């Protein structure tokens, strides 16, 4: 049994929350840069230029890329041969968020309760998901999830008869109707199958995949390509003002499901793609 001190978790979460808000995923910025060559809207091109310029500026000056520094999402993969000492893992994660958001001059964007709506001022609590895996390591994934895109996410229970075409149509219609709200060009995390909550979790998890890497299942990878192409034919474009670049990548995660079900959840990610991970 290997032991990890809770204070180590706190310090890594603190660091990831600050650094990811200052330096968005460089792979995303590269994709936006590449998209300029195929963007025929002059307004769209202006938007893409402003996005890459903003990324460089935020990084160089060490300031948040976006003022919405997000709700903090953490996936913790806990090796079953690991023991956390010196406190509760959940408390250690939240303490890291608290320190990161304070020390990094990040915005507290979390209210204590959906009805009372009092700002907790330190962005806690994080939304935390735990998974128990083999081994003696603790892997922590962090994301700062802005709400412009999160609010444009969607879950629906399709019928098996809707099939592959129904899946594509549902996603394309949804992205079209979302227009500029989620800050396109977006990344789409799609959870397909499972149950309503499994699909939602898979959709979120899909956003943590290396940007643009295809699903290892060729059938799913082909679906990802077809969704991407169809979404980019909508004309929604950068920030929804018309253009060719609506979506940067589609990541689909699948799971077994009931004979009578085809659950789907789409978790939309904006161009402020703030992700980090660490292994302890």
């Amino acid at each position, binding site marked *: 049994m290997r032991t990890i001190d809770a204070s180590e978790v706190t310090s890594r979460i603190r660091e990831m929350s600050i650094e990811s808000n200052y330096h968005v995923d460089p792979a995303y910025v590269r994709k936006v840069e590449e998209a300029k060559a195929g963007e025929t809207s002059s307004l769209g091109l202006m938007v893409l230029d402003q996005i890459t310029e903003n990324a460089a500026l935020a990084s160089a000056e060490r300031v948040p890329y976006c*003022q919405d520094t997000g709700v903090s999402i953490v996936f913790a993969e806990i090796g079953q041969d690991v023991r956390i000492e010196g406190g509760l893992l959940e408390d250690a994660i939240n303490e890291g968020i608290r320190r990161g958001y304070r020390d990094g001059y990040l915005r507290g964007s979390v209210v204590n309760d959906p009805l009372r709506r009092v700002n907790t001022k330190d962005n806690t609590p994080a939304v935390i998901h735990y998974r128990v895996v083999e081994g003696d390591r603790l892997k922590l994934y962090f994301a700062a999830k802005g709400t412009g895109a999160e609010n444009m996410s969607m879950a629906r229970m399709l019928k098996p008869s809707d099939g592959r075409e129904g899946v594509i149509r549902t996603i394309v219609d949804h992205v079209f109707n979302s227009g500029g709200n989620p800050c396109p060009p977006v990344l789409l995390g799609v959870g397909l199958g499972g149950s309503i909550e499994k699909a939602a979790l898979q959709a979120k998890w899909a956003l943590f995949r290396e940007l643009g890497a295809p699903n290892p299942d060729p059938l799913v990878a082909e679906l990802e390509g077809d969704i991407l192409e169809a979404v980019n034919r909508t004309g929604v474009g950068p920030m929804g003002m018309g253009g060719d670049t609506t979506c940067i990548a589609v990541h689909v995660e699948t799971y077994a499901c009931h004979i009578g079900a085809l659950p789907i959840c789409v978790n939309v990610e904006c161009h402020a793609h703030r992700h980090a991970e660490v292994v302890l």
Partner: protein
Amino acid sequence: MRSLDLPLDSEVVESLSMGDMCELSGVLYTARDAAHKRMLEDAARGEPLPIDVAGQVLYYVGPTPPKPGAVIGSAGPTTSGRMDAYTPRMLELGLTGMIGKGGRSPAVVEAIAEHRAVYFAAIGGTAALLAKRIKEVELIAYEDLGTEAIRRLVVEKFPVVVAVDSRGKDIFAEGYKAFAK
């Protein structure tokens, strides 16, 4: 690129067309969800608003805390659709312009045309860059709302696009058409 002075003259507002790229210089006021809700509760009770919105432009923004020595933290636009419930009333009170991101409801687009106002889109997420164009910040009201408080900003060459013009032409309803395949 058009350079516009704030607050906007009504002739200037009339001259703007959907899709125009503009740079704004002058005074803006910040207000987002909670400040809108509170202002209209004040108005409903017959109390004066903390700012006279007549002729002014509101920026839907909740900035990050400023780093030591900075005028303001990162300060990009938030989703305007969340202010749709409040906007027709704000326009009745004389508001001339709004800056945010994303589309507006049909009722808001109609109200913009009726009151000969304008809705500008700033580029969402580009908050570090937009903060550079903000030269002065003064807290005006609702300090307890933190990032959602009302602040008076002086901006210089603040980049925006005319998203809904005073005739109700809406880029979020029409912009995609030329590029849909």
